[in-house]
């Protein structure tokens, strides 16, 4: 029992130490390049939580991050590496806005319909690599990377040629499909905070419940850990692979809906990737691929991203530094082996 507990503790401490190490190394880098780290970090803090407006913006940023993180984590738990969250996110965004601007329906139908459309679009986009993996053993990493570009250019084409007449940006989604709320904006001093955070939290619960409590989740986890044993136990490995990609894609599509129906309310032609999907990989990694872990690491990433915007103005520190710190955190999580080793040493000394 004692051993188990300390293992769990180590699992919990590893990401925290990774974050601290990231911040420490970030401090060293700032000192070395002549910036004031205290000013930088307080600017970071103020830019994330210093005013209610920024807190609202952090939550707004956290919303798609949670869902993108869940998408990566879910696939990963079933042993798949979904690099295509970015693409599924883009098609989800497009689908949500498409439904949002094209229909006139009562809100009780329109909003759920737009959200579901995004989930379905993301799911379909992820179904392709899932199917190719299950049937033809084509590696999902390659297919999903390629599909990211396809998603980017296809959605750009549709925005230009179908949704608008050669414009860069669609109109706003109808009020009946928006996640935005005057009230939420009001209490956060005009931040873009919207109801999507509720969707994200519900999805955290769904992921946890699905994986940990259901029969289907038992199969998915078994396939993730050991496909051979899953096959031996009579589970349909291929069906579970496809299913996991579909669910992962649905989460990613929902992340897109958060932007389309909440943050922006429209969709624009994009010159490149938004990065939300790729940040999702780091978020899932830091969160240990668990629903609760993703929730907390998304908050951290959201706060870092939004807070960083304030750093140049308040402290004169370039906000790229936060990118460096994020990269360092990811680095330290990825090399968590080193941290575990250190914790082991530490633990041993305590025993003595």
């Amino acid at each position, binding site marked *: 029992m004692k051993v188990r507990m300390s293992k769990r503790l180590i699992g919990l401490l590893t990401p925290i130490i990774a974050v601290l190490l990231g911040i420490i190394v970030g401090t060293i880098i700032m000192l070395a390049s002549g910036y004031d780290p205290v000013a930088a970090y307080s600017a970071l803090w103020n830019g994330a939580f210093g005013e209610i407006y920024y807190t609202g913006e952090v939550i707004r940023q956290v919303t798609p991050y949670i869902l993108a993180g869940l998408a990566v984590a879910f696939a990963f738990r079933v042993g798949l590496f979904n690099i295509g969250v970015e693409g599924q996110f883009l098609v989800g965004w497009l689908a949500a806005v498409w439904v949002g601007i094209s229909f006139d329906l009562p809100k009780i139908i329109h909003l759920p319909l737009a959200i579901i459309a995004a989930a379905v679009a993301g799911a379909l986009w992820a179904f392709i690599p899932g199917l190719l993996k299950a049937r033809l053993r084509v590696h999902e990493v390659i297919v999903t990377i390629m599909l990211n570009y396809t998603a980017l250019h296809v959605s750009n084409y549709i925005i230009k040629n179908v949704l608008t007449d050669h414009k860069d940006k669609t109109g706003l989604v109808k009020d009946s499909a928006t996640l935005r709320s005057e009230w939420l904006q009001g209490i956060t001093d*005009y931040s873009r905070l919207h109801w999507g955070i509720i969707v994200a939290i519900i999805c955290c619960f769904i992921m946890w419940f699905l994986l940990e409590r259901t029969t289907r989740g038992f199969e998915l986890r078994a396939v993730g850990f050991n496909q051979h044993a899953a096959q031996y136990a009579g589970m349909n490995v291929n069906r579970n692979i496809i299913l996991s990609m579909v669910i992962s894609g649905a989460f990613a599509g929902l992340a897109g809906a958060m932007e389309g129906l909440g943050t922006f309310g429209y969709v*624009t032609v994009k010159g490149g990737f938004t990065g939300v999907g790729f940040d999702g990989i780091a978020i899932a990694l830091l969160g240990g691929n668990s629903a609760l872990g993703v929730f907390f690491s998304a908050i951290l990433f959201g706060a870092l991203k939004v807070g960083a*915007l304030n750093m140049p103005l308040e402290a004169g520190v370039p906000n790229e530094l936060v990118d460096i710190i994020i990269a360092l955190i990811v680095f330290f999580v990825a090399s968590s082996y080193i941290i575990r080793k250190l914790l082991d040493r530490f633990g041993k000394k305590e025993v003595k």
Partner: protein
Amino acid sequence: MKKRKIGMALSLVLAAGTLLGACGKSDDNAGKDDAKGGDKDKAFTVAMVTDVGGVDDKSFNQSAWEGLQAFGKDNSMEKGKNGYDYLQSKSDADYSTNLNTLARQDFDLVFGIGFMMQGAVEEIAKQQKDSHFAIVDSQVDQPNVASILFKEQEASFLVGIAAGMATQSDKIGFIGGMESEVIERFEAGFVAGVKAANPDATVDIQYAGAFDKAELGQTIASKMYSSGADVIFHAAGATGNGLFKEAVDRKAKNPDATIWAIGVDRDQADMGADVVLTSAVKRVDVAVQDTATKAKEGNFPGGKVTLYGLAEDGVAAAPINAKVSNKAEIDAAIKTWVDKIKSGDVKVPGTRAELKSFSAQ
């Protein structure tokens, strides 16, 4: 167990910090808001938000920042919260936060650089009715927003003339960033200029689909040069940097070859002294400086669209490279066309549709 307790304590401290931080700051804020009304004497401040290209994109954002710096210098202001400053955006989602941050910091005028910021500027202008905004390259119909547009077609018409006269192969290339109204103006003007100077020349038009992909720009440029083009014009932001790299590389390998590249937005001669023929200069700096000055003097053109063309010194063709054999002729031709355009005799096409019905003679 010890460690666990420390962890618990840590998280409690963090949580408390969050709450206290939020409370403390909102009090500050209230105080600030009160001060805002009475504080009319405070020095004029101005700031801008870049798009994802960043302030050192050697193009559009950089030009805007240069304008702001010049304005600051003229008015002996300092960089920072009490003078002039900028914020850089790293994704589309950041535009809104950045614009809001600057408005909250009580900058008297906040520029949004680039049409990508249109949605964000419009929304925030509605919320922050007391703040003044300006948007470059797009139009926002709000009383507290000044819209700045350029007649890009006039500048690109002039560089089109230069391209048409400098080419030996009669093959000319155009690399666009992403298709948009602004880039279409560049394209239409350029093609019109080429045709006006050299009816035999053909223009190969390609879009990179991005403003920040230098390697893609280089690939496209490489293909164009390889298929015989000897002058290429780009209106593609940082993507266009690849064009210059390719041109410089080719020139280094074969110094006798006729290889020209034409820059955009600012005079990009520094991108390759031997290969940059000229640039379609869009004086974002002039426009920014001009708008800031107006605002400082109390004439903020809120709710208005200001068009900057040749006549307003808002656009121009950069000096022709001295190494072109027929530089004198080109200079003369450009001068003639500048006069014609300024006088209104010639209306340069700004869309593909207008280009079809355009005839220079």
